[in-house]
């Protein structure tokens, strides 16, 4: 297995996958900077809450795009060079699948970590109210990663099964938009859509007072049943996808 992962790393040589992640993090940073720039000192007191509310929203579209691009970059070289028919005479097909997933997760982990770094960096720079909420940021990292890895698993399955990478890219984008729009749907409905789990597992809620037009953020209770459901999603996608890949004839 270690050899298989090391070879995945070698295959990414010159593929500039980290650049994709970095660019997307840049976008996220610009957006965060812009969103915070029209806040006054009063709002900044709730700065941490604001970020922990807004970042998951943006993740609905940003993370599926990263997942789609990374999975596609990792899998496309195999289709292009028709390598599966040789690899599968050397390594068990499920190990090829696992190794790719493990290496792909590293990028998703990098992206989630990058977001936390952006939040902490900006929070300290702009003197958000209160100490750094390490617990909530840890929770953010954990939930973001849980959702992102599930979406990544989905993307990898599609990228491995279809030689034409337009299929996974399209599905990834469509999924992201559905996730974004599902924010306007009721909670119960959101739980059926994989891409809306960034919203489902949010730790911060928002009140908007119609009269005073004041926005107020507050800590919510974590939706653990949603988390369990996400776990089920992951198991099904990974399990079924891997079986499909192993059974596929090349």
């Amino acid at each position: 297995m270690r050899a298989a992962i090391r070879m995945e790393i070698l295959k990414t040589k010159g593929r500039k996958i980290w650049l994709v992640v970095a660019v997307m993090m840049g976008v996220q940073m610009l957006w965060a900077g812009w969103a915070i720039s029209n806040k006054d000192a009063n709002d900044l007191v709730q700065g941490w809450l604001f970020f922990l509310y807004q970042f998951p929203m943006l993740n609905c579209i940003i993370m599926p795009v990263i997942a789609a691009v990374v999975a596609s970059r990792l899998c496309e070289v195999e289709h292009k060079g028709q390598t599966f028919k040789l690899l599968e005479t050397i390594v068990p097909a499920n190990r090829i699948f696992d190794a790719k997933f493990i290496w792909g997760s590293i990028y998703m982990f990098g992206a989630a970590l990058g977001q936390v770094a952006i939040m902490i960096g900006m929070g300290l720079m702009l003197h958000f109210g209160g100490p750094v909420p390490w617990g909530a940021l840890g929770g953010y990292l954990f939930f973001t990663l849980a959702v992102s890895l599930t979406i990544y698993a989905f993307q990898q399955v599609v990228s491995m099964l279809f030689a034409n990478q337009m299929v996974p890219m399209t599905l990834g984008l469509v999924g992201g938009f559905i996730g974004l729009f599902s924010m306007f749907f009721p909670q119960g409905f959101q739980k059926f859509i994989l891409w809306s789990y960034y919203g489902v597992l949010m730790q911060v809620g928002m009140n908007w007072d119609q009269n005073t037009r004041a926005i107020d953020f507050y800590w919510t209770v974590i939706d653990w049943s949603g988390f369990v459901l996400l776990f089920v999603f992951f198991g099904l996608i990974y399990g079924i996808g891997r079986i499909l890949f192993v059974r596929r004839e090349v």
Partner: protein
Amino acid sequence: MSNVIETEGLSKEYGNVYRVKDVDLLVPEGAIYGFLGPNGAGKSTTLKMVLGLAKPTAGEISVFGKRVNSKNRLENLKNVGSLIESPSYYGHLTGAENLQIFQTLRGVPKQNIDEVLKIVRLDNQKNKKVSQYSLGMKQRLGLASALLGYPKLLILDEPTNGLDPAGIQEMRELIQSLPKKFGMTVVVSSHLLSEIDQLATRVGIIREGELVYQDSLMKLHQYSQQHLAVRTMNNEVTKSFLSQNGVDWEVQDDYLIIPQMKDSMMAEISKVLGQNNIGLVRIEERKKSLEDIFLELTGTAVSL
């Protein structure tokens, strides 16, 4: 001598049609086995099943005398190198890096990389990106990947695909040297008999999924000599006369092709023809070309 590959009733169905049917492949140890058939006959499908890349609809496969199942498949394949249909490669990596991937996954010594690069004469191009390789170079890289572990069995599916005449000649010489040099057994598929003539020691011919011939190349050569061509002043009457006497015939231009027969029998025929005032003007011993035989066996031309 034992068989390196043995299949029994190997069959594969794609969408309700048997593309490979009841194939009993026998590849003896140390042989160069020429696996022949026209496009779409089922060569690649058969070889993929042997490698476990496609699941047989029916039948059994034994490699190195062991029945292959999903559990021991990869263990068995440790001693098998393969190149199916087209070479597998990572275009964005160099030739050497490509081989490094397969060498590491196979768990064979690193020095094999340089050795096989020398064997296929790519050592001067090993640091070039494979996407910049010519088709022939990619094909040779594919062969190098197959040779990496010095396998006991090498399965090459149309290895001369895309090679120029010089490349084909080079590939032939290379394949020919493998059994002696490394003790390998080689299966080479092709849709041209001429390509494996003088190369293969044993031939299997597949036609529409069925194995129609499997024996030594020598037997095939012998088979190609057994015909007579006769021309008479009235071939029409001669045809019915031959049929009445139970002699098979076939028209080829102005000639009737009949099987080789004893001199006494031929004398009898010419005598009767003379009695009926049909002048026998030519009798020739025809040696069918191997290609003719192949065409007949594969059904692309009229059959005898």
